[in-house]
């Protein structure tokens, strides 16, 4: 490591750990206001239907019911609900089981629920398609005008894949399927809205208070200045709390109508179907390689099931990571009559990496090459179709150091010949994620006693962002971490931040904090120079005081500089204006998994896991390491168990609850060894790159490859469950 840090690249407990573990942390659901009403949502039981009429008279007559909104009396668009603006809060045509039809506010939640039972809705049912395959059929009923298959693919082409396939000694052509996986965050949805004159305040569980503010202002037709969003603590989202949601709007509209605070609540079943999960895919790969392991061509033709509306790109990202002369990627979006698909941690990545890494292991096996050597042979030297240089890259070091820590070579030898029911196998997978920089803002106050308050518009979505911002400020100001407080999560108090998604928080807002600290320090030293009639260069800010560089022991309290009647020195940055030039800033990871498979039961157990990461300098190794472990556990669930299932005939979701999708449990997770390869990045705050999204990317491929290594069975459709292993063994 090139630099020594006072606070960074160490393990620091969260700045708010005590509040969180003692239950003092206030989440959206913990906020109750006097006179608050409870609201529940009536959802469509049909996957595709026209709402012909809604009769709310019986529900309105129920004592305790205060207001009912539905498509007959509420026409607001929900702009976050569809990237093409086709979605209303209550649609006249419902397009999936669970789409909102009405919302009732009542004096308690049970009355609101009872009222839902009394609303009479007349539907005209329409034909529906639930799978990617069915929705693409020529005779499928279009879910939106223009048909279910978007004609223009996302993607690019480098070289000529047909030519590349001709040059290959070995060719592989395979089809993979991945499923809709819900984010399954612990905190259920609630939204509390309250009007105060012409201003609305919303307590939301959001990953971006400013995204939420903008969406709400747009959809309610209010100036930004009249919308306040508060999210002090939030209990996970992993991408499905990025924007404002239809239920935020329902809360706001009902609150306005009833002149009471209104909280919309979801139960766990609704949480699984009414927001979104990861997009399912159908992926065809054609890959060619030389006998020496050089990949000559990669062609991915993929289809992403977006559900009933377009809420994210639907792209697939994986082939970029390998260096091949001929690459073609074409990804088509498909609409289906099921819950929406959109962002879930590294939205376009783990499903694509599962398929690519599986296909590459098959090629390596055919050539007779160790999968690790095969990957080392094809590492990227430049990035993407623009052939950009990297700002920094330590992918090869991740692979080599990870493999050494894991014991890759010994285990390959050890498991070469096995007998009996219990089999072991190892697999690896690579991953990457963008590490962009963009505008953000921050305010830093250096108080007269030397303590510091940092104001940032971030929400700590579980990543430890508040702690990260505090550490960056402490490092930039060269002060003890204990003297820093961080204020976040309120648009009336904190300056803009871009929203906690896309691995942006540390990169975007971290730079803003550094700049704001520099500005505050500059201002202080300018004032000190004037006050003390000294040269600015001879002064420094150290441990909460101004010191003379040349005279050890000589220092001035801040009150001596700014006066007793001034509260603080303030450094503010409204726009960081980052500039990166033509380089690719990408974070990388190499993961290694060992599994044990019981051939008699199909049971798969992950027994060892090493995750090696290139995220530049790591601001906080404690929360950084936790993020990686969390991503690995989510990836294990995606690989081995989780999928949201809709009945193929009715389109009704059948397992939309925790026990239905069965996320991993603690006893099932092995010790996960995290290895940071800290190569300083010249652009990121204090040499850091992104970290939050990438940990889930390599996991599914690594585990899939380990299962095949153990059993000889290649499962090309996620999740890799015992039934698929047992049926695969029948064929073997």
């Amino acid at each position, binding site marked *: 490591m090139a630099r020594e840090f006072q606070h960074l690249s160490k393990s620091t407990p969260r700045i708010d750990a005590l509040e969180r573990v003692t239950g003092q942390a206030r989440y959206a659901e913990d906020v109750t206001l006097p006179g608050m009403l409870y609201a529940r949502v009536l959802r469509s039981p049909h996957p595709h239907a026209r709402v012909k009429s809604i009769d709310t008279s019986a529900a309105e007559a129920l004592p305790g019911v205060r207001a009912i909104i539905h498509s007959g009396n509420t026409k607001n668009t929900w702009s976050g609900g569809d990237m093409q603006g086709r979605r209303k809060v209550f649609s006249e045509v419902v397009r999936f089981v669970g789409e909102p039809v009405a919302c009732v506010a009542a004096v308690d939640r049970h009355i609101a629920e009872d009222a839902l039972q009394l609303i009479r809705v007349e539907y005209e049912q329409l034909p529906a398609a639930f799978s990617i395959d069915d929705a693409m059929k020529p005779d499928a009923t279009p879910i939106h005008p223009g048909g279910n298959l978007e004609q223009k693919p996302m993607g690019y082409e480098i070289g000529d894949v047909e030519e590349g396939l001709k040059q290959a000694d070995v060719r592989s052509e395979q089809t993979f399927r991945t499923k809709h996986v819900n984010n399954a965050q612990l905190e259920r949805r609630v939204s509390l809205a309250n009007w105060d004159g012409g201003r609305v305040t919303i307590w939301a569980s959001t990953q971006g208070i400013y995204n939420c503010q903008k969406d709400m202002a747009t959809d309610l037709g209010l100036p930004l200045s009249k919308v306040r969003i508060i999210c002090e603590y939030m209990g996970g989202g992993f991408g499905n709390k990025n924007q404002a949601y239809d239920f935020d709007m329902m809360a706001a509209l009902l609150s306005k109508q009833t002149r009471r605070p209104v909280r919309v609540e979801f139960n766990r079943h609704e949480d699984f179907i009414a927001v979104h999960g990861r997009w399912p895919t159908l992926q065809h790969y054609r890959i060619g390689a030389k006998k020496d392991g050089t990949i000559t061509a990669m062609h991915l033709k993929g289809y992403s099931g977006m559900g009933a509306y377009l809420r994210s790109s639907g792209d697939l990202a994986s082939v970029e990571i390998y260096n091949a002369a001929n690459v073609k990627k074409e990804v088509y979006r498909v609409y289906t009559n099921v819950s929406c698909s959109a962002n879930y941690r590294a939205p376009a990545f783990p499903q694509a990496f599962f398929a690519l890494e599986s296909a590459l292991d098959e090629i390596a096996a055919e050539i007779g090459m160790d999968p690790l050597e095969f990957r080392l042979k094809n590492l990227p030297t430049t990035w993407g179709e623009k052939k950009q240089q990297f700002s920094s890259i330590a992918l090869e070091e991740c692979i080599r150091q990870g493999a050494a820590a894991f014991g890759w070579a010994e285990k390959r030898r050890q498991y070469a010949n096995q007998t009996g029911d219990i089999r072991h196998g190892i697999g690896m997978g690579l991953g990457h994620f963008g590490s962009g920089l963009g505008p953000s803002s921050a305010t830093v106050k250096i108080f007269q006693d030397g303590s510091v308050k940092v104001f940032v518009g971030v929400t700590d979505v579980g990543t430890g962002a508040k702690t990260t911002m505090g550490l960056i400020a402490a490092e930039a100001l060269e002060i003890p971490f204990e003297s820093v407080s961080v204020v976040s999560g309120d648009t009336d108090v904190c300056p803009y931040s871009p929203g906690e998604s896309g691995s942006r928080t540390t990169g975007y807002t971290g730079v803003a904090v550094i700049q704001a600290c520099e500005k505050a320090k500059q201002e202080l030293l300018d004032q000190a120079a004037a006050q003390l009639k000294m040269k600015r260069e001879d002064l420094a800010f150290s441990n909460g005081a101004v010191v003379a560089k040349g005279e050890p022991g000589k220092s001035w309290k801040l009150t001596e500089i700014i006066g007793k009647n001034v509260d603080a020195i303030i450094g503010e940055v409204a726009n960081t204006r980052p500039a990166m030039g033509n380089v690719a800033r990408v974070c990388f990871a190499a993961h290694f998994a060992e599994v044990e498979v019981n051939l008699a*039961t199909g049971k798969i157990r992950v027994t060892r896991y090493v995750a090696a990461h290139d995220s530049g300098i790591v601001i906080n190794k404690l929360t950084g390491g936790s993020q990686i472990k969390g991503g690995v556990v989510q990836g294990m669930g995606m690989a081995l168990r989780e999928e949201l299932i809709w*009945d193929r005939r009715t389109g009704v979701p059948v397992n939309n609850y925790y026990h239905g999708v*069965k996320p991993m449990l603690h006893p099932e997770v092995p010790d996960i060894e995290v290895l940071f390869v800290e190569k300083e990045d010249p652009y990121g705050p204090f040499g850091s790159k992104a970290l939050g999204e990438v940990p889930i990317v390599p996991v599914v491929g690594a585990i899939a490859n380990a299962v095949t290594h153990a059993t000889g069975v290649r499962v090309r459709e996620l999740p890799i469950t015992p039934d698929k292993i047992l*049926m695969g063994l*029948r064929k073997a």
Partner: protein
Amino acid sequence: MKAFIHKNATSVREAVMLLGQHPGKALPIAAGSDLLAEMKDRIETPEVVVNLKTIPGLDKIQKRQDSISIGALVPIIELVESGLLGTNFQVLVEAASVIASPQIRNVGTVGGNLCQRPRCWYYRSDLQCLRKGGKTCFAPMGENRYHAILGAGPSYIVHPSDLAPALISLDAKARIAGGSGDRTIALEQFFVLPTTNVRRENVLRPDEILTEIIIPLPAPGTKSTYWKQMERDAWDFALVSVAAAVRVQDGKVAQARVAMGGVAPVPWRSHEAEAALVGKALDEINIAEAAQQAMKSARPLRDNAYKVDLAKNIIKGALQKLA
């Protein structure tokens, strides 16, 4: 949750009377770990809920001369931790120890475990399925990876209880109290196939409750075990489970009882497997034959053929543990 009237029963008689006063509209509750979830999801919307936990005396495990008695209100965890069930009832101890999660084992009762409703995801969904009084069982043409391979139709649920197969392998009896009198029946007869009653999993009438389980002391030399295969390591229902109790005498199987969970709408006793074992050595060949026989009449659906292989393999695994 729909509002309901909660009544504490102070005796078995009172419980039965309260249930009888509101036929079809009252349900008994013990720990409620299943019923409350059903009520929240409006699968059940009783007007009256009769609390059995206030009845004294039903939460005891009592050893008798030639049997053991387990009250219906005994918490599941007591089967494991009381120490009252020794190796004679090994299969029951093992089954109890892998039910759900520690929290649920602490509150959930033996009676509740035996009377719990199916976990079929159609039954638990908003669809009006056959078991909820609708016209269709959605499983055979739908998503059926967890459904029945034996004894199914017109409903394809699997019975979710772990205690039931274990108790049936021990030849347990069920004591039932009701408005028109009490009765004691073999636990195996307590459960009913959908061809008998497509709405219920057992013989209990609306004004009847399960009060006690009686297990005869197994003949000396009997060994028993429970194998539960789950997708998760814990907190999961069985994909397939096997309870086996075998007595070997003079090198040959003198008595064998094999019951399975997760394969049929009732805890499934495999007379075929038992017949294949009795009179023979408990060796690899005979065990394999018993597993084969157990699955002879299996009729898998599109997505659950794996259960046939899994059942055979864990029957073998369980019996080998007893060999």
